[in-house]
C-alpha cells in the first residue's frame, strides 16, 4: 500500500529531514510513527500525501510513484487518502456539515449523494446532532471528529494522521483512538504520527521510530521506548 525506498529529504534551507528511509506498509495495517519533535515524522507523512517530494529515493502509494504524478493526478491521489491534523484545519466560516460536504463538493458529487454520505459519516463520528454548528462552537474533540469525518467521507483506503491527539486531553484522545480502531477494523490503513507514549504503548500496534531522520526501530506490537 505504501512503500518508501531509500528516501532522503532535504528541505530548501538545507535541513535534512529524512535520511535514507525504507519501509513498507501493507493494506489494513495500523502504524504509529514515533519520535520527538523535529525528528522527521511530519515530513514522512507529507511525502505520502505528496505535500513534499523526496530529494532522493522513491515513495510508492497504491502502486504509483508519487513523484511522477501530474497535478491533476495528485488531486486524485489525495481523494484516496484521508488526512487529519493536530490543528484540525477546519474552515471557520463553514458549519460541521459544510466542512465535511466541502470535500465532496470539490470532487463534483451531486447534492443528493453528498447529503447521504455526509449524514452517514457524521453518524459514525457521533456528530449528527451538531451538523449546523460552527467549529468555534465545538470542543476540541468534536472539532477533531469533524476533521476525521471529512477525511473519511470519500471512503479513503488510507488515513494519515499527524499528531491527531496533540491538542486534546487524554480522555478525548482515547475517544479519538477508539474511532481510529474502528476505522482500521473496517480495513482502512492508518498511519499516525504521535509522541503520545501512553497511546502507543496501550494500542500495541506496529511502531516505526524516527531519530534525526533515520528509522531507529520498526516493531510489530511495539511500544514507544
Amino acid at each position: 500500500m505504501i512503500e518508501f525506498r531509500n528516501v532522503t529529504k532535504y528541505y530548501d534551507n538545507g535541513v535534512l529531514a529524512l535520511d535514507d528511509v525504507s519501509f513498507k506498509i501493507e493494506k489494513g495495517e495500523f502504524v504509529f510513527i514515533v519520535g520527538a519533535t523535529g525528528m522527521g515524522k511530519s515530513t514522512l507523512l507529507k511525502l505520502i500525501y505528496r505535500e513534499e517530494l523526496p530529494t532522493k529515493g522513491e515513495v510508492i502509494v497504491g502502486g504509483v510513484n508519487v513523484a511522477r504524478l501530474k497535478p491533476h493526478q495528485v488531486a486524485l491521489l489525495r481523494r484516496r487518502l484521508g488526512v487529519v491534523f493536530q490543528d484540525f484545519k477546519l474552515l471557520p466560516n463553514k458549519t460541521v456539515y459544510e466542512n465535511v460536504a466541502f470535500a465532496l463538493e470539490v470532487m463534483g458529487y451531486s447534492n443528493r449523494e453528498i447529503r447521504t454520505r455526509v449524514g452517514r459519516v457524521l453518524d459514525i463520528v457521533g456528530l449528527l446532532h451538531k451538523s449546523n454548528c460552527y467549529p468555534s462552537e465545538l470542543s476540541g474533540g468534536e472539532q477533531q471528529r469533524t476533521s476525521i469525518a471529512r477525511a473519511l467521507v470519500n471512503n479513503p483506503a488510507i488515513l494519515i494522521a499527524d499528531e491527531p491527539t496533540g491538542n486534546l486531553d487524554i480522555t478525548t484522545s482515547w475517544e479519538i483512538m477508539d474511532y481510529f480502531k474502528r476505522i482500521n477494523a473496517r480495513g482502512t490503513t492508518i498511519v499516525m504520527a504521535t509522541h503520545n507514549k501512553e497511546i502507543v504503548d496501550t494500542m500495541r500496534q506496529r511502531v516505526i521510530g524516527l531519530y534525526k531522520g533515520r528509522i531507529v526501530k520498526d516493531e510489530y506490537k511495539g511500544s514507544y521506548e
Partner: protein
Amino acid sequence: MKIYSIAFILREAWKGLTRARISTFAAIGIIAFMLVLLGTVFYTFNVIQSVFTGIGEQLEIVLYLKDGLKSEDREILKNKISSMEGVKEVIYVSKDEAWKRFKESFKGNKFVLEIMGKNPLPDSFEIKVERPEYIEILAKEITALPGIRDIDIPLEIARRVNRLISWIEFGGVIIVGVFVVVSLFVISNVIRLSFVSRIKELEIMQLVGATSFFIKGPFILEGVLCGFGGGILGVIVFNVLVFLFNKYVLSSFPLFSGFVPCDTLNLSLSLILFGMMVGGIGSVIFLERHLKR
C-alpha cells in the same frame, strides 16, 4: 457531474463575495475609484486634444483668384480642390462679397476707405481643412494650380498647433499609460489582499483532492465579479462627472466652444472590461503565489 461543478463554483464565488461584505465593498470601492481616476484622465486628454484640434480647424487657406477667371473654370478649380484629401469645405467669396466684408470691418474709418477707393479685392476661395496637419501638404498642391493670383497660408500657426497637438497626444499616451499600470497594480493587489485571509481554504481544498479547476474557479470568478462591481460603480460616477463637466464647465468657456462632448459609451465599456480583467489577474496572482505546485 459538470452541472454540479459549475454550481459549486458559482455558489462558492457568491459566498465569498457576500460573506466578508465589508472587505468586498472596500475592494469594489477602491476599484471604482481607480477606474473613475483612469476614465477622468483619459477624458481630460480627450477634451484638451479636441480643443486644440478645434483651434486648428478654424485655420483656413485663402486662395485669391486671377481677375477675369471664367465661372466654369472657377467651378472646375473648386471641384478640384474639394476632392483633395483633407479638404473639409471650400467656400467661394466673390469680390463684391469681400468688399462688403471689408467695408463692414472698417466701418467708421473713412480714411482707409477713401484710400482704397474702388473695390480692389479679388475673388477668393476660403478652404477649411479637416485637421491642421493637412495645411502644409495642401498648400503645396494648391499653389501649383492654374488661375491663382495669390495664396494666404497660416503655415506658421498650423505648424505650432500641430506640434502642440502631437505633444499633447504623446503626453496623453504616457500619462494614460502610467495610470493604466498604476490601476492595474492597485486593483490586482486589492483583490489579492482580500483573499489573503483565505489561504487556509486553498490548503484544505488541495488536501481533500480538489483539482485546480475547482480551487481556482471560485477565486477567479470572484475577482472578476468584484472588478465588474467596481466597474459598474466607477462608470456611473464617471458618467455623472462627465455630465456635470459638460453642463457647467464646457458651456461657460468659449475656449471649448469647438468641442463636441465625446461619447463615453466605449470608454465606459472599456473601463468595466478593464476592471473585470484586472480583478481576474489579481485572483490569478493570488493563486500563483499561494497555491503550492
